[in-house]
């Protein structure tokens, strides 16, 4: 549906500034550096990453609001942008791409009513393609009804609540029935409660309407909850592309593991490996785990252990039990639906999130049991 190939965008004139900012010494000139991905019909594809990783620039390039240096952007069989050095270069202006977009600020026109906001995309069509007045109002009413905004139709757009504004922005983007919907952090302006309920609302609508969407966010929870596919971006490049569960359980590198959720990182060496079953030596003991990264024997790795993959017990499973470490509880915090423990193991501190029925006092020696299917290997770069 949407195909992006070797997209590159650099910001001229920001060279020195970018370089100064980046302490690691990497050149931060490229906002988007050779990004390629494909979005299938009906998918909700998320570009996830911290601010400045190039996700918004990628989205704006798809929209036509930003002109990439090179690469190809195609929606269906329409090439929106193409500049590959050879052949004719194409760059459709934003107003001819026919895509829907929801802006971070919603960009609702304050001088128009709700109805006028939604009708605008139909009203500005070239004369030949413009629907009749009656049809416009029918289509607007229909999309307003889908978004449960029918009653607000005649109101001034600025009088709407945050959630209603979001639905209005969505209605305006969808009224032309675009092949692709672009969403630029549409939930970031809302408070936490509303954000959560709208997240499901958005997911339901997207699935029901079956509209292919590209979603930009820096919120990993949002990305995990909504997406069919996630592309995690760092410094202008896609570092991992996969289903939410894959990205969470099998992070491609330490950056992804750290950015998505919290994790304990324990360094070690691969002692043996067979068909994805690794045995890793760490300073705290041996760990058995399964990983899609097939690491050769002897390679340095980092083991990522999610806090919820750790079970705590005051009794050992036995001398020879695999994946069992001993440690001592240092601190704990009751979170309502779970209890967080910090356990010191050797020279490491491991966070464990356990069922509230388990609550172990500080100073108690404990056994940490690690589920081999829930811990993952992260290659050391």
């Amino acid at each position, binding site marked *: 549906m949407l195909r992006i190939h070797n997209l590159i965008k650099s910001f001229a004139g920001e060279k020195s500034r970018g370089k100064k900012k980046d302490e690691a010494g990497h050149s931060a000139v490229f906002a988007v550096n050779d990004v390629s991905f494909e979005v299938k019909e009906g998918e909700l594809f998320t570009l996830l990453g911290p601010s400045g990783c190039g996700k918004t620039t990628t989205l704006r390039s798809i929209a036509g609001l930003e002109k990439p240096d090179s690469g190809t952007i195609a929606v269906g069989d329409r090439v929106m942008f193409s500049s590959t050095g050879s052949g004719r270069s194409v760059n459709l202006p934003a*107003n001819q791409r026919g895509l829907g977009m929801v802006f971070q600020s919603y960009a609702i026109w304050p*001088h128009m009513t709700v109805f006028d906001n939604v009708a605008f995309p139909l009203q500005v069509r070239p004369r030949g393609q413009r629907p009749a007045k009656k049809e416009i109002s029918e289509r607007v009413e229909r999309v307003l009804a889908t978004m449960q905004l029918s009653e607000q139709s005649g109101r001034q757009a600025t009088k709407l609540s945050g959630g209603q504004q979001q639905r209005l922005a969505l209605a*305006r983007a969808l009224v032309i029935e675009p092949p692709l919907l672009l969403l630029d952090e549409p939930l970031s302006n809302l408070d936490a409660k509303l954000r959560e309920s709208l997240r499901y609302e958005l997911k339901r609508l997207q699935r029901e309407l079956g509209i292919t969407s590209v979603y930009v966010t820096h919120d990993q929870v949002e990305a995990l909850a909504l997406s069919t596919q996630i592309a995690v971006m760092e410094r202008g490049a896609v570092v991992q592309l996969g289903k939410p569960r894959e990205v969470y359980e099998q992070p491609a590198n330490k950056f992804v593991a750290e950015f998505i959720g919290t994790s304990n990182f324990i360094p070690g060496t691969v002692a043996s490996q067979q068909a994805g079953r690794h045995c890793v030596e760490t300073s705290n003991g041996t760990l058995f785990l399964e990983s899609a990264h097939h690491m050769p024997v002897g390679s340095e790795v980092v083991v990522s252990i999610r806090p919820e993959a750790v079970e705590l017990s005051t009794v050992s499973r036995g001398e020879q039990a695999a994946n069992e470490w001993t440690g001592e509880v240092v601190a704990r915090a009751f979170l309502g639906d779970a209890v967080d423990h910090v356990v010191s193991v050797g020279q490491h501190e491991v966070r464990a999130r356990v069922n509230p029925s388990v609550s172990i006092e500080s100073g108690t020696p404990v056994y940490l049991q690690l589920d081999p299917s829930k811990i993952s290997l992260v290659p050391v770069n």
Partner: protein
Amino acid sequence: MTANLADPAVTPEELTRPSDGPPERSKARWRGPLTPKMFIVAGVAAAIGYLALVPLGYLVWGTFFDAEGLDLGSFERAYGDGRMGELWGNSLAFAGGSALLSITVGTTLAYLNVRTAVPFKALFFAASIVPLVIPGILYTVSWIFLASPEIGLLNAFFEPILGGAPFNIFTIWGMIWVEGLHSSPIVFLLMVAAFRSMDPSLEESALMSGATRLQALRKVTLPLVRPALLSSVLVILITSLESFEVPALLGLQNGIYVFTSRIYFVLRSYPQDLGAAGALAVSLLAVAVIGVAVSRLLAGKGSKTYQTVTGKGFRPRPMDLGKWKPVVGVGILFYFFVTVLGPLLVLLYAALLPYYQAPSWEALSSFTLDNFVQVVEMDSAARALRNSLILGLSAATIVMALMAVASWISIRSTIPGRGIVEQLSFVPLVIPGIVLGLSISFVYLRFPLPIYGTLLILLIAYCTKYMPYGMRYATTSMTQISSELEESAMVSGASWWTTFRRVLLPLLSPGITAGFIYILVVSFRELSSSILLYSPGNEVLSILIWEQFENGSFNVLAAIGVLMVVALMVMVTIAYKLGAKVGLRED
């Protein structure tokens, strides 16, 4: 008619009554002995009230009353010659035409500058601002050099081709042209602010909806900046109505009178008729008051209706102009040449010539620095420069000192009636310069103290005139300072005066400095009030230029003008650098 005209002018008088109130009522609250705080606050409030209201009071009284009582004869004398319709017509055509021109030019420039990737951006910004730096009198004279039917260079250039002088600056069109171009930077600055504060995604979402650039501009951008546009229109209408230089230099020659030049004409005729001038001034004042009131009303309404919901921060991304880029580039160069380079070059050209003539080899070979030598050797030039400096520095110092305290009163204090101080400080904004000059001469002609005919009367005029600007700078800074900073000083045991001196003043200093420089710069080109108040020996620079113009020594005038423009450019650059430095320190 006369009764109607008088009404708005009385309003400022009514303001006096409530302003008497606060000190009495607040005494109860303050209790205790007379503190320095009370003295300072009351002194500043009284000074502002005096500057704002006394001249107006005298003007109204002097216009409506004579020794015998109420007398409307002055109105009859002012309007009785049957040319009242013409006066109103000219004034409105002049103000409306200038507003139309400057709004079109200023808004287009602002939009191109903020929202698109224009070529020559630095040059462009300079071109948009510079006409503001050139004093109105010099800008007008430059255009006389360019487009006068007798000596205009443009005419000399086009005459052989078109067989007749195509341009005549001494017409209402010429007046509109010069005034409109000279005020377009004001519109530019207002609209730049408006476009900058507009979330660009509002426009981008229109593009995403399939709208063309033009549709996006017409249906989204322009409606959204309409409040700013409306207030620009009113600001320009008022400044053009109050403008003196252009109508006096260009209109008097062919008898095209607007209110300001008519007032000047009446006062310069013999026998001088203060009452008739007053009657004209009261009408002009009334129009200005109505204009300002309407613009306030609209501004208030606008901010309510158009409060836009925006995201956190937005990065303004300039739009690519595409195939229009060369067209816009050429347009900008042309604009730069017509509004900045042309007038400045012609001034320099005239300054280097022994007598004004069309460019030729002969003219070029007669280039001389004699005019500059003459200026340097001229007694009156040195005196005028000294007077201008004294007046500028003193007015800037006095105004900013008063306004620092006044801004505290209006923003921080809980003194009842504090709002009135702010309102009073803005009163001079609606008083046209020539009306202010007239009002002040009304006061001090009847005043026992020997102020009339001294520099002091000019200083009073300057302080009054620039009070609103000083107040704006000071209040803007004051609102940026958290009241907790002041409160923590108080809690630490500092007295009010110590807090003000040690905490508030240092924090206010960037705004105060900016205001100081602004006043210094604008006071250098003040003409419309000075022209009624100066006396021989007390000329300021702008008056010196005016005198050269009246004497017909255009080349000496041009030399003074060149020096003045250079000095102003230097001052503005220093101010800009200083502002940037102060701004950096703020970070």
